């Protein structure tokens, strides 16, 4: 449209309208062929990029988005261990979209991957996709999150969120001196881990009648939301002594809000053991966090893949649970990227 109007629209250009029209026509011809050209260009690009048939076996690693250092660490750890054991890897992210995950599993099946290591996008939504992979003879190893079915995956290796939350809860009780009012920031409420963590916290904390839950809000695992919601919550609840958060990013957001309000003395405990949080514990900005051994779990999963592919069995039960560890200022220096150094 605009190309046809071009010379009418800009009067100062009329002197060149003839050559412009010629070039416009050429442009149109190019445009008509553009889809064809695009397809050819892309096809040649893919042809140049696609690898020769793999001589080595490939492990497909699929996790949620790498903008969370937790998932990046587990994907990196799995890929590194697979490389050491002589496997090729493909690393992809499903962004917590079950449909995208389904597509990625289809791709892994089509590329005849030897195994899939998956941090899944939904306990129920994942089952059908895994059945499909199993039917195609590709063993699946789940990390970090379980699914609501057994016998579909070869292994489900998760960190023990409930045990970790109890650890965090115990430390919180100790720091609070067993009394005072506190606020809680929940993770995304539709996420299983958010529920398990808050249950773990409360199974410990609620045993102490001196500890009073003044307010509870979801901040959707987000630092920005943790910050804004904490700013608002402390308006309604004065004299709060502690904050317990379902993950570290919310805890760090809450800490920033408390600092801005001059409430530096408030105790903040997080969960996950992200590098930022461990650094924050080290310098006293967070009082404690709970480390999920994501790197350990990812490496273990790849080792079980190797064992399964070479011997036909992992030698371990399908459901495996790895304990979390408490990080305090005293031991913060011992921890690295989601594992002990």
């Amino acid at each position: 449209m605009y190309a046809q109007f071009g010379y009418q629209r800009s009067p100062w250009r009329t002197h060149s309208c003839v050559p412009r029209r010629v070039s416009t026509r050429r442009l149109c011809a190019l445009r008509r062929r553009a889809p064809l050209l695009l397809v050819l260009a892309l096809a040649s690009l893919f042809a140049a990029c696609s690898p020769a048939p793999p001589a080595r076996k490939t492990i497909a690693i699929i996790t949620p988005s790498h903008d969370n250092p937790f998932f990046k660490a587990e994907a990196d750890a799995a890929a590194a261990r697979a490389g050491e054991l002589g496997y090729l890897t493909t690393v992809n992210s499903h962004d917590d979209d079950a449909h995208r995950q389904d597509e990625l599993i289809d791709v892994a099946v089509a590329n005849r991957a030897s195994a899939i290591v998956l941090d899944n996008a939904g306990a129920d939504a994942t089952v059908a996709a895994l059945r499909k992979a199993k039917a195609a003879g590709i063993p699946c190893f789940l990390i970090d999150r379980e699914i609501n079915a057994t016998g579909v995956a070869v292994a489900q290796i998760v960190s023990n969120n409930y045990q970790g939350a109890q650890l965090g809860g115990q430390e919180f009780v100790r720091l609070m001196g067993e009394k005072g009012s506190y606020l809680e920031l929940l993770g995304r409420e539709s996420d299983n881990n958010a529920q398990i963590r808050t249950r773990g916290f409360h199974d410990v904390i609620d045993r102490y009648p001196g500890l009073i839950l003044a307010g509870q809000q979801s901040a959707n695992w987000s630092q920005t939301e943790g910050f804004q919601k904490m700013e608002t919550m402390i308006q309604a609840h004065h004299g709060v002594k502690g904050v317990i958060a379902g993950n570290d990013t919310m805890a760090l957001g809450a800490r920033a809000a408390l600092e801005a309000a001059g409430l530096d003395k408030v105790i903040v405990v997080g969960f996950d053991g992200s590098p930022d949080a461990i650094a924050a514990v080290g310098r006293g900005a967070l009082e404690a966090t709970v480390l999920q051994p994501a790197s350990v779990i990812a490496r273990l999963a790849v080792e079980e893949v190797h064992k399964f592919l070479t011997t036909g069995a992992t030698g371990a039960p399908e459901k495996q649970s790895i304990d979390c560890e408490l990080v305090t200022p005293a031991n913060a220096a011992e921890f690295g990227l989601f594992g002990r150094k």
Partner: protein
Amino acid sequence: MRAHFGELSRALLAVVLVGGIFAWISPAFLTSANLTILVKHVAINAILGIGMTFVILSGGIDLSVGAIVGLAGMVAGGLIHHGLVFRGWGVVVYQHTWLVVAAALATGLAVGLVNGLLVSRLSVAPFIATLGTLYMARGAALLSSGGATFPDLGGRPELGNTGLPVLGAGTFASIPLPIWIMLGFALVAAVVAARTPFGRRVYAVGGNERAAELSGVRVRGIKTAVYAISGFCAAAVGLIIAAELGAAHPATGETFELNAIAAVVLGGTSLSGGRGSIGGTIVGALVIGELADGLVLAGVSEFWQFVIRGLVIVLAVVVDQLQPRRS
């Protein structure tokens, strides 16, 4: 061209109504401390909404603002963490911080210009052009750190700078800086929209593009400018958020564009362009902010918060549609 007083007063009525309900539910709502925090939270959406208002007045839409928020924060975070580059030039601390701020704002402006050029020169539909830059800007933000957060934006002790966090945590006359920034943006934008030839041309382009063109308005230039303004506003928001948190996270700002559009529409600006006002957008952002914070104060569950927020947005626009309108 200017907002009818009636429209603005209806939106203000919504502010008073929603505020009244929360004041009744929670005694903490009407305290000055809470209202300050509330307006500080509103500032984020309001500044995005100001830029978005120009785009929507011109008949376009800008989906990329949330991603620009994230990208601008990452630019600032990256520069603070690699501040050595500037130290080599012997640049003093304050300039260092100002350079960081300028670079982040320039990034937003640049992405906005790309949006504007795509829409005005290459005739790409605004929805698609800005959706494309949304993905590119978000991708760039993630690439800038490999997905990681830049923590501790306070600058380094050896530089001795109070640095970026002042922008988020500082106060002037005991009112937080983000509120002043919002007021500054709102004042300039309101004057530009209502009292300058540029503003009148934005309305003209949105009202009837062909007519505007025939009466000598340089439509392409106007269209390019409104997206640049929107990108600039988004970058300012990115800086404020990074300053408040003292950290820059690449996924910051997801779905912010929808809140900004909601604020603009709640404020009585027509999605088809040519009608609306900056003042309306500020009031719209106030309504959304009151809801977000009031529901938290009242201790309402997150799931109900979604439902109530949606209901109020739809209701407000429906009520607006039912009113008789002078043209």
